[in-house]
């Protein structure tokens, strides 16, 4: 063990690594936004009065949750061009992350919605509110509060999963690291640094999630 640490390539490439972090956060943010939309939309459709729509949502959730993300992102990246749809790797990655995160979000948010006492919905009905208003104004916030810890840890996972998007050469931290590593062969230094950067991003994100929670979900409950 007389490996000589040499951080010079890491230091030289540090601005690139920081840009990579920004790319990662961009993918994660885009993925989360799509995941939240799919999650809430999916929960509404999951209880649609039309059976085929319910089945479609259930099939979507099962399909996504029982196949590897790497395969999903390859599928979107290579299959869509066959259908004549050409999108760049970064957009592909955001879509794939959103779809993957969305499937998990449907199940998580659904759990939250089911935790809402039916008296809440009856009170809304008795006040003359319509189904959509009841969901949006009465059910959604307490439901999101109930599952907030699970949803945010799913989103942290989504952020870390962005590293797989390097497989389709999306612009993010891992692909930047791979490039620096293959130019310098300083694997330990590069991936050691990247590990710390991912950890910091996840940690900062958790703090942001906590701030959001304090801002929006701080109402007292018994």
């Amino acid at each position, binding site marked *: 063990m007389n490996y000589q640490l040499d951080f010079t390539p890491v230091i030289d490439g540090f601005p690139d690594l920081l840009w990579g972090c920004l790319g990662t956060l961009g993918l994660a943010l885009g993925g989360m936004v799509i995941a939240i939309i799919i999650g809430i939309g999916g929960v509404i459709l999951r209880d649609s009065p039309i059976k085929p729509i319910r089945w479609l949502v259930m099939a979507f959730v099962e399909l996504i949750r029982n196949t590897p993300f790497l395969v999903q992102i390859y599928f979107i990246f290579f299959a869509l061009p066959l259908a004549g749809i050409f999108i760049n790797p970064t957009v592909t990655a955001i879509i794939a992350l959103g779809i993957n995160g969305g499937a998990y979000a449907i199940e998580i948010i659904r759990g939250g919605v089911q935790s809402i006492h039916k008296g*809440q919905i009856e*009170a809304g*009905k*008795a*006040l*003359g509110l319509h189904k959509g208003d009841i969901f949006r104004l009465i059910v959604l916030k307490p439901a999101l*509060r109930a599952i907030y810890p699970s949803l945010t840890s799913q989103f942290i996972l989504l952020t870390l999963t962005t590293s797989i998007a390097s497989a389709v050469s999306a612009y993010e931290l891992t692909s930047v690291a791979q490039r620096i590593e293959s130019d310098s062969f300083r694997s330990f230094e590069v991936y050691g640094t990247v590990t710390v950067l991912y950890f910091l991003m996840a940690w900062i994100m958790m703090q942001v999630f906590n701030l959001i929670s304090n801002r929006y979900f701080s*109402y007292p409950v018994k």
Partner: protein
Amino acid sequence: MNNANPSTSAEPMIVFRHVEKWYGSFKALTDINLEVRTGEKIVLCGPSGSGKSTLIRCINHLEPYQKGELLVEGLKVGEDPKIIDAVRREVGMVFQQFNLFPHMTVLENCILAPMRTRKTPREAAVATARRLLDRVKILDQADKYPAQLSGGQQQRVAIARALCMEPKAMLFDEPTSALDPEMVKEVLDTMISLAEEGMTMICVTHEMGFARQVADRVIFMAKGEIIEEAPPEQFFRNPQHKRTQQFLGEILSRH
């Protein structure tokens, strides 16, 4: 309160005609016939599972019924969503478990429905809400969240919330059953003052003191049927049916 009350008119506001309801194969309501006139105060009592909550929940269609017809102000409450909407705007409901929205302040709870369903402007909705919160003596808690209030306070807020829709009738579904004993009175006092102002009320309750004081008629139900119906003096002094006598014996010995 009795039939001499000037706010009581001859015109029926709520009419049940041969209403029947099943939960699957279980018959929850059998041949319900009932007329409630504007301004009348009805107390519904009976053992648990007798269908009294189910009966009032049919009025605003929280429960659908399968046979007969139920009219509110001449409109048949059934599958027509427009009529259900109209009835729900005109008929307020207070629940055993309060069902306040935990993520909204007391004031927000009160202004939500008027703003969404009556399209009342915010300032007007707030003014109405503050007036009604004052009336149930809880205006000082307007900016608190439900979990910060006692059960009795929550139920008074729930009453104010229903009143904010300016309903023509109020349904009370065991409004004091979930309360600690020392809080029952504040809620009953609120209901009594509402009754004195002429509100049409149907109350499912075992508070027989309340029934004596405000009811025009007391209705006794068992096994989904109306067994007996009488003005309170007669109902308590001289119940006709054995089942009623037995029930009154049980419930009055507890108090």
